[in-house]
């Protein structure tokens, strides 16, 4: 029974929790609120009530489950191996079934389901963003309340989305492999250079890169918020798009997108007679860019050009705990000649971004971010490297608010620099 379709499907996971409270030690939200409802143990008991039919949707109940970053630290730290983050997702899905999402979220996800409209909206946004946002040194802040926190600094939308800048097929000069590239929204609309870096580095390694034009949002924002219907529609569409391609791998540059393809699509479509197997086949091909370069292509990074840079690394939750890639990004970066790595105290502690969480829970989100910023401050580095666009937006906001001099790069941009300096 799929956990997203029926909360009964997560019963065994709920029963497994022995309520030891060990999750308190690692939950970033709990560390700020110190409320039992903020931590997995409390939420699991609330989920048990929903399961038994003793609790039904109320806005307050939905809010309890909403206050979770899905950073998975609780699950990683649980002595009983309870997948607490999945219980929370199953509860969100159940509550959303009982009562529709708040209007704003619902409207947003409806747009996600219409890729063309979503694309049109963001293109329009790029042209007219100056009306709503005020530019500052590092990005933009909202000019008037539009549902975003007024203090928040967000990056500008790119003038041209990545997918309309690059051709659908990007052939290498000496091609030996072929991959598809799932760009994800943040890379497509904001950090387009990340996408260009992926293509450039892969081409350097003799890999042809196909960027399917009809791809769109992976659906994680909808699924994570409990809108399973939208999540499934997105999953089916992407399974169709990527199934028909004859490629060795599907490259992602964000743990949330990667994990959605690799795990959530399989879970969402587990009971579907047509899509279950197809989703598994697509999932097997998913590789984060760091994983693909290190494990599949076995690139010798020590032979690349020199990059004079002292960096610290923030491990995105969905790259580290989500996709299990704790070794690859650092293995890649630290081998590049000239580069120096200064580890922060807790590289794998959530930055508090968590996609829409940072928009709807800005004060808590910022408190969590503040700890990350202190950690960065303590490292004697000038660059923060990470592997996720959402984390990057969050950290850039903080660096700007605190007037810190660091700048943020995606791992692949560092590798791109190493290739460029070799020339």
């Amino acid at each position, binding site marked *: 029974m799929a956990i997203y379709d029926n909360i009964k499907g997560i019963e*065994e996971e709920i029963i497994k929790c022995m309520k030891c*409270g060990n999750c308190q030690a690692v939950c970033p939200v709990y560390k700020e609120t*110190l409320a039992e409802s903020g931590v997995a143990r409390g939420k699991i008991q609330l989920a048990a009530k929903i399961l038994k039919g003793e609790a039904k949707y109320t806005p307050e109940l939905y809010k309890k489950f909403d206050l979770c970053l899905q950073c998975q630290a609780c699950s990683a730290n649980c002595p009983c191996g309870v997948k607490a983050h999945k219980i929370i997702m199953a509860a969100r899905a159940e509550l959303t079934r009982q009562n529709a999402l708040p209007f704003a979220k619902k409207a947003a996800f409806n747009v996600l389901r219409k890729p063309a409209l979503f694309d049109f909206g963001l293109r329009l946004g790029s042209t007219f963003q100056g009306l709503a946002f005020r530019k500052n040194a590092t990005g933009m802040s909202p000019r008037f309340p539009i549902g975003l926190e007024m203090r928040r600094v967000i990056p500008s939308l790119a003038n041209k989305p990545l997918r309309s800048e690059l051709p659908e097929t990007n052939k290498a000069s000496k091609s030996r492999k072929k991959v598809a590239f799932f760009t994800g929204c943040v890379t497509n609309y904001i950090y387009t250079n990340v996408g260009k870096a992926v293509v450039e580095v892969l081409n350097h390694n003799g890999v042809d890169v196909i960027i399917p034009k009809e791809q769109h949002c992976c659906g994680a924002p909808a699924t994570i918020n409990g809108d399973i219907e939208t999540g499934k529609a997105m999953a089916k569409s992407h399974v169709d798009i990527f199934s028909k391609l004859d490629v060795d791998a599907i490259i992602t540059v964000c743990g949330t997108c990667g994990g959605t393809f690799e795990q959530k699509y399989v879970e969402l479509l587990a009971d579907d007679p047509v899509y279950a197997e197809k989703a598994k086949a697509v999932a097997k091909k998913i590789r984060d860019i760091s994983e693909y370069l290190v494990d599949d292509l076995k690139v010798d990074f020590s032979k690349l050009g020199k990059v004079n840079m002292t960096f610290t690394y923030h491990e995105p939750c969905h790259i580290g705990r989500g996709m299990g890639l704790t070794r690859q990004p650092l293995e890649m970066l630290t081998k590049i000649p000239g580069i120096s790595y200064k580890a922060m105290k807790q590289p794998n502690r959530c930055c508090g971004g968590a996609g829409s969480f940072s928009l709807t829970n800005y004060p808590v989100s910022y408190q969590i971010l503040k700890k990350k910023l202190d950690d960065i401050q303590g490292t004697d580095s000038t660059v923060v490297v990470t592997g996720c666009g959402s984390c990057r937006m969050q950290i850039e906001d903080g660096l700007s608010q605190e007037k810190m001099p660091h700048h943020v790069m995606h791992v692949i941009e560092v590798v791109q620099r190493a290739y460029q300096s070799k020339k």
Partner: protein
Amino acid sequence: MSKAQAIEALVKALGKENVITEHEELVCYSFDATADMPSQMPDVVVTPTNTHDVTEILKVANQYKIPVYPRGSGTNLCGDTIPLKGGIILRMQKMNKIIEVDADNLVAVVQPGVIINDLNVAVAPFGLIYPPDPGTVATATMGGSVSECSGGLRGLKYGVTKHYVMGLEVVMIDGTVARFGGKTVKNVTAYDMVKLFTGAEGTLGVITEITVKLIPAPETKKSMLAYFDKLEDAGNTVTEIVRSKVIPATMEIMDQVTIRTVENFSKVGLPTDCEALLLIEVDGIPEVVEREAATVVKVVGNNNGKIKVAKDDVERDGLWAARRAALPALAQMKPTTVLEDATVPRSKLTEMLVALQNIAKKYNLHIGTFGHAGDGNLHPTILTDERDAEEMKRVHQAVDEIFKVALELGGTISGEHGIGMAKAKYLPLEFGEQGVEVMRKVKRALDPENLLNPGKMMG
């Protein structure tokens, strides 16, 4: 409608934001870490930030005759923070300041909401440690730990929490603030009230400030893993090591059920055919550690055991991984983990281990036993499923028998977990009715209306 009036009075005293009555939040305070306990919702969750707040809250509770349950992180294993009779959950987590680290006097003064591990982090730069180390050291609060008088892995050499509490500030049910003890090593003035409130499980007063003793951190440590084909050999080894005047910091035992489960679960390379293993760690000055380790190796050999000594920190971590995996490995086998706390004099360890094996057979239950062999504190862990009513009946019978045997061997019903509501019924077995009555008199004198953590320990 006294409850509604009481809540109104609490709001007036503490402000709306510190008085929670939202149903969804109350559900989250209806349980603690104890398995197989009834859950009960409080009427209100109140969050004080200083002693004055606590005074105000207790005055309201006293005036309206509403029960109060002091609560830290809710990690206790005896049902002590379940609000059995409804009322006020007194959430102490935001009183979490380390007030002072006084390295000259080897003491620290903390508020009750400080996490134990945070205190250790704060005293580490002074080369000091706070030795009590319950398994929940990263989550449990100092207040909870003092109230439960919790123990831990280092109990053999370093004792339990009460051996480190030097002074307390306590608020009584009528709002009176009393201070006992202090920073002096020698303090024999009048009744030892510090010891009385330590381990009182929140039934006599609410602790608002704690002065604890710190000790110099041991310079070095050496860990060893010993395997035995016969349970008796392991038990005799424990006794003989201590008889040889070596007091390890840690001497942990795992029985065969636990070894097999751990190995099956985490593949750390344990020999699954041995009947018991001991994890032994000696610590202190390097020369002494060397000498003590050599003695341990000799004693293990004398008792037909095989031993592996960790050469460096990596190997030491490897040995500890096996011990740390014990509970999680057991806990993952079945959904419900009933973790007991029977403790016997060290010399009776083997008898207790054999008795536990027999109890498992008699009631047809899966019991894995691990624990602190050096101090006779065992954690027989019954693996079951609370949805299976028939099996739960046998679990309860087995638990009754475990405590009966422990007491017959001259032991106690709690080595480190406390009494709470889980073990209150066994108290007369240990103290007799007369002993319990003496305690009841103390309870009645300090809390005549039974408002402080009712339903626990003294009923």
